[in-house]
């Protein structure tokens, strides 16, 4: 099992095999790119991180996995690697779960039901099932790869009818192609890239220029949609982690304010 996982993550950079992602920040950007390319999305990356931790999955803490995940996302962002919205959305989900785990929630009778991890765990399990299923499928012998149809030419007189095609069928086929091509144009436009590091700079500038506190909610631009909110949220948490801003709150459930560090 473990050999298989490390194999999956192997990247070759400048002729050197990377069997594991280096933990320090000194990583050639192309290594990261290869690394990211080898994942089929955020669930895959998350699963890899959980596995890589090698410790007992029984003791897995969402907090650790979330920190790791955010580190990777952050690193990739610094290196200006385009991150799909799915990766950022997952980061936000994890951050939300982490914060819920930290909050002293009112204890409920049924812990299982209210475990904020339940949903993500369910998704990870389903994803892993499908991942294994895909591997199984690929290993299953199939026609034209392991098996070839064994057949003798029929001695039948060569008057086998050929397929008939009429104009209507041809037109319908072509309009299908055109419709699909048009659909692709609409849906495969690259979305505008929102960069977490850029957002961090914006927020820092705003907070520094403000005389006192900036309301936390004022930093979000709702018209940027969910992705924009996620990016802003990530940027604030990053700044917080780096000690560049402080978030203050006067009491439980009171509004949050953001200030530049050392300005209080």
């Amino acid at each position, binding site marked *: 099992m473990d050999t298989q996982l490390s194999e999956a993550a192997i990247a070759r950079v400048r002729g050197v095999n990377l069997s594991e992602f280096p933990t320090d920040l000194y990583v050639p950007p192309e290594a990261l790119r290869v690394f990211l390319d080898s994942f089929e999305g955020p669930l895959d990356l998350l699963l890899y991180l959980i596995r890589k931790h090698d410790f007992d999955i029984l003791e897995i803490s969402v907090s650790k996995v979330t920190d790791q995940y955010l580190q990777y996302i952050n690193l990739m962002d610094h290196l200006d690697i385009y991150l799909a919205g799915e990766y950022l959305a997952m980061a936000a989900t994890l951050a939300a779960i982490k914060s819920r785990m930290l909050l002293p929630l009112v204890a409920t009778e049924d812990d299982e039901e209210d475990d904020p991890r339940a949903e993500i765990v369910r998704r990870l*399990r389903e994803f892993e099932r499908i991942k294994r299923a895909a591997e199984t499928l690929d290993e299953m012998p199939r026609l034209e790869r*392991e098996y070839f149809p064994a057949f003798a030419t029929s001695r039948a007189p060569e008057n086998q009818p050929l397929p008939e095609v009429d104009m209507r069928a041809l037109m319908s086929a072509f309009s299908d192609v055109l419709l699909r091509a048009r659909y692709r144009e609409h849906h*495969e436009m690259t979305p505008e890239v929102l960069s977490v590091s850029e957002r961090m700079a914006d927020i820092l500038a705003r907070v520094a220029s403000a005389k006192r506190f900036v309301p936390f909610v004022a930093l979000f631009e709702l018209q940027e949609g969910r992705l924009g909110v996620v990016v802003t949220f990530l940027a604030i948490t990053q700044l917080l982690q780096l000690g560049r801003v402080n978030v203050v709150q006067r009491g439980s459930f009171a509004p949050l304010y953001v200030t530049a560090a050392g300005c209080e």
Partner: protein
Amino acid sequence: MNKLALGEVVEAMLIGSGEAVSIDQMRRAIVDVGEIEGGVAKLNERIGKVIKELQAACDGRPFELFDTAAGFRYVTRAQYAPFISSLKGQKPPTYSRATLETLAVIAWRQPVTRGDIEQIRGVRLNSSILRALLDRDWIRITGHKETPGRPALYATTRAFLDNFGLKSLDELPDADELLTDRVQEGLLK
């Protein structure tokens, strides 16, 4: 025309058609042509018996008689595949992880919408993947889900089963058994 022995007729149909053939299809062809020793009484049963004999006769031969969802088909045994590939001068197509995972979701969770596939895999699905699988005739649209937008529902085809040598979807391994023990036991705790 002399009457022909059923055994040879069935063998000729199996090896001469180049495709999977069901007992029913063979029975219809025999009734259609006639000229068979012993007439057409209890044909299905008799064809079934011939097939058993033919399967046994493959012992020690470089080919075998497969029983899949689409019918019976002679195929060469796996160890000879490299020679035939080399002769044909073309490598069998390989499929990307994204394609295989998409196919796996459809095979194990059918019928599913594109949204279901995206939800399970956690990433956007490139249309060309579904297109390629439809093209390959491994999946088909079985209907539309009665939700806004009426998204298409995808399922696997008989050709899919035939290609993977399966008689029915029940022969796919159980998805839960594919999970590693660690995830199975650990994650929820």
